[in-house]
């Protein structure tokens, strides 16, 4: 059962197992670096110089950190769209669609209210609009699952295409700004309703949204009866029904919350980055979020860390091309190796004698985990 998380183990288990849950992911990343080094050497670059560049470009300076955080912030939100339903045993991959629908709702609200109300209120309305739109979008997949037995993975995936088609239809038709000739786009939202950057940085407020949403999601799932009910239903849906848990309501509510997070990412993308809606909003943040959620084992706090890691890898992508003449797909190879290693390391829990407590009960805890 994947429902117990590294963090719970970290908090509740004896020292050696806590060490295990730290050492294994770090070991996995180190192993990935070694494999990637072989790849770089084959491609004609000095692996040590490449590592140095990656570190410098991703975490080496405050400017590099900002670059990393800018790329990480949408991933924190889209990752929750997969991570939350996963606790219920649902595999939702409609993150991209929920993000697009959220961006669409934000633009509609922003165009409708922008300039008539104070900027803060417009932003609040845009955020609410995107939360509701994204939430309903994924809730639709949850409802199909609960009432009609439709596989939620397939339906949420297909909803992505519908969302993108809907967005394209609107920006090529009713919402289209004729002054933006060669790229169909909506009108620009009023500058008073633009989402700014954090003081003295170039990181926009989306980062705070992501951190707050992740923290709230963590508390909701791990520290409330609602979260306990959801995890129980995820563990064994029949047992949950027999225990009298409202599985249908839980499914719809969790899917709504999940979709809202991705929808909010769409609002941030519109209000802080693009300022108008066009196909640039479809830039794979949703799909990257799925990856983040799985690597983070659907733990809402771990998704933050994994998002920053992925943000750093993406931030380093440019320097690999520019300073080392590596092909542009190199960063994808690196990303793939890191995530494969982290996922593979999952299978190593409990395999090293060093991390086992000497008492018998520790072994039992791993098996039950």
């Amino acid at each position, binding site marked *: 059962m994947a429902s117990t998380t590294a963090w719970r183990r970290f908090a509740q288990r004896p020292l050696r197992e806590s060490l295990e849950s730290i050492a294994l992911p770090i070991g996995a990343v180190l192993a990935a670096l070694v494999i990637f080094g072989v790849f770089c050497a084959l491609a004609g670059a000095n692996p040590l*110089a490449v590592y140095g560049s990656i570190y410098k470009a991703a975490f080496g300076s405050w400017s590099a950190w900002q*670059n990393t955080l800018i790329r990480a912030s949408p991933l924190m939100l889209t990752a929750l769209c997969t991570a939350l339903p996963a606790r219920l045993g649902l595999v939702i991959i409609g993150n991209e669609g929920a993000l697009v629908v959220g961006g669409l709702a934000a633009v509609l609200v922003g165009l409708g209210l922008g300039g008539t109300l104070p900027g803060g209120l417009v932003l609040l309305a845009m955020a609410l609009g995107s939360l509701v739109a994204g939430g309903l979008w994924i809730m639709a997949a949850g409802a199909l699952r609960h009432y009609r037995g439709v596989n939620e993975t397939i339906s949420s995936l297909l909803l992505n295409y519908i969302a993108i088609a809907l967005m394209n239809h609107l920006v090529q038709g009713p919402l289209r700004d004729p002054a933006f*000739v060669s790229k169909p786009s909506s009108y620009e939202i009023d500058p008073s309703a633009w989402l700014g950057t954090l003081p003295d940085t170039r990181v926009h407020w989306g980062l705070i949204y992501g951190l707050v949403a992740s923290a709230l999601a963590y508390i909701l799932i791990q520290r409330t009866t609602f979260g306990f009910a959801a995890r129980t239903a995820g563990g064994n849906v029949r047992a949950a029904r027999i225990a009298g848990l409202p599985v249908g309501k839980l499914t719809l509510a969790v899917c709504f919350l999940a979709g809202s997070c991705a929808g909010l990412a769409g609002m941030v993308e519109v209000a802080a980055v693009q300022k108008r809606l066009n196909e640039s909003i479809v830039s794979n943040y949703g799909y990257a979020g799925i990856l983040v959620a799985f690597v983070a084992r659907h733990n809402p706090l771990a998704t933050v860390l994994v998002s920053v890691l992925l943000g750093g890898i993406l931030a380093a992508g440019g320097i690999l091309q520019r300073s080392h*003449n590596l092909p542009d797909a190199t960063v994808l190879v690196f990303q793939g190796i890191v995530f494969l290693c982290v996922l593979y390391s999952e299978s190593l829990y409990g395999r090293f004698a060093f991390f086992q407590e000497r008492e018998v009960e520790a072994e039992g805890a791993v098996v039950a985990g």
Partner: protein
Amino acid sequence: MSDRNRAFGFSRRQVVRGLLASSAFGLTAKFGTGCAQSPSTGGDAAADGAAPEELVVGFIYVGPKDDYGYNQAHAEGAAAMVANVPGIRLVEEANVPETTAVAETMRSMIEIDGAKVLFPTSFGYFDPHILNMAKEFPDVQFLHAGGLYQEGVHPNNVGSYFGYIDEAQYVAGVVAGRMSKSGKLGFVAAKPIPQVLRNVNSFTLGARSVNPAATTQVIFTGEWAEPVKEAEATNSMADQGIEVITCHVDSPKVVIETAEKRGVYTSGYHADQSSLAPKGYLTGAEWDWSSIYTKLGQDFMAGKTLMAGDIPHILRGGLADNFCKLSPYGPAVTDEAKADGDAAAAGIKSGDLVIYKGPLKTNTGDEVLPADKEMKTNNVELEKMDYFVEGVIGSVS
């Protein structure tokens, strides 16, 4: 009892296979790019600092540099600039999406590589990303392909350049019209925006100048890169008995290869695709960024800037100004078709041949131009085109 490994849907075998695939990719990537390795720039070239007189120019592409299309055309131009103008060092980044990622790439090129001139080539980079960066770095020049610069509205260190490539499409249309017995031509198009419509119309007008019965069937795919739909459209055109197919999508590779397999003639776009269709490639409308970038590179090295006004903020031109060119004729092209194509190209270059002249009607019967009127290439009305001319089969909406 499910072990953790399975819970995520990865068996050990799959993981091992994945790792092997990654390593294999590494090997192929090495072979694929082996010739592009330059030993001179390695290690910490960026951090070592540049020689004092060196000018660092950054190019940013939205897709891969070898897409046989839009990005390759720019990348070849960039390579030509470096080869032709001494003192320029090129930094490049490919596959950069039109999000904050491109803003970060520009910033990194400026701050880490010391770039003084940037060519972010994708259309969607301009607003808001280039405009924001240009305000923040007023001493860096930003040149953008697309003609979006507005005097007085946009920062002084931004310029735009674009070519009237529909002139080359007209000539390609002449060749296609001559090579097709039935006069049935096909055009795989991405989106119904003015620039695409203009290419379709010019291609059709070219064909109809030599074969008044020629028609162009248009299929829109809806996206700039939609390989599956592009292949479907090409196949359905081949099924209909269409004899020459051209396109306006980001990478014409799929269209050209599919048509070649079906034994249909092709006419390229963006870059030279003759190697993809050794038998059926007739000619193609190509960007000639090599000449434009070389000229700009020489200007930069001579100390000219957008800010000082030495370099115009809007650069435009067609065949005559070397903004675009035609692919060399393929082996199938007859001497008669070559002669007509050359004559049309010469007429356009000299200004004697005007593509849009009356009487001209749309394919729904509305009048575009009366008999005594014409619109020259640089007429801004042509950039708002929202119709198909007579002879095009298809609808703009």
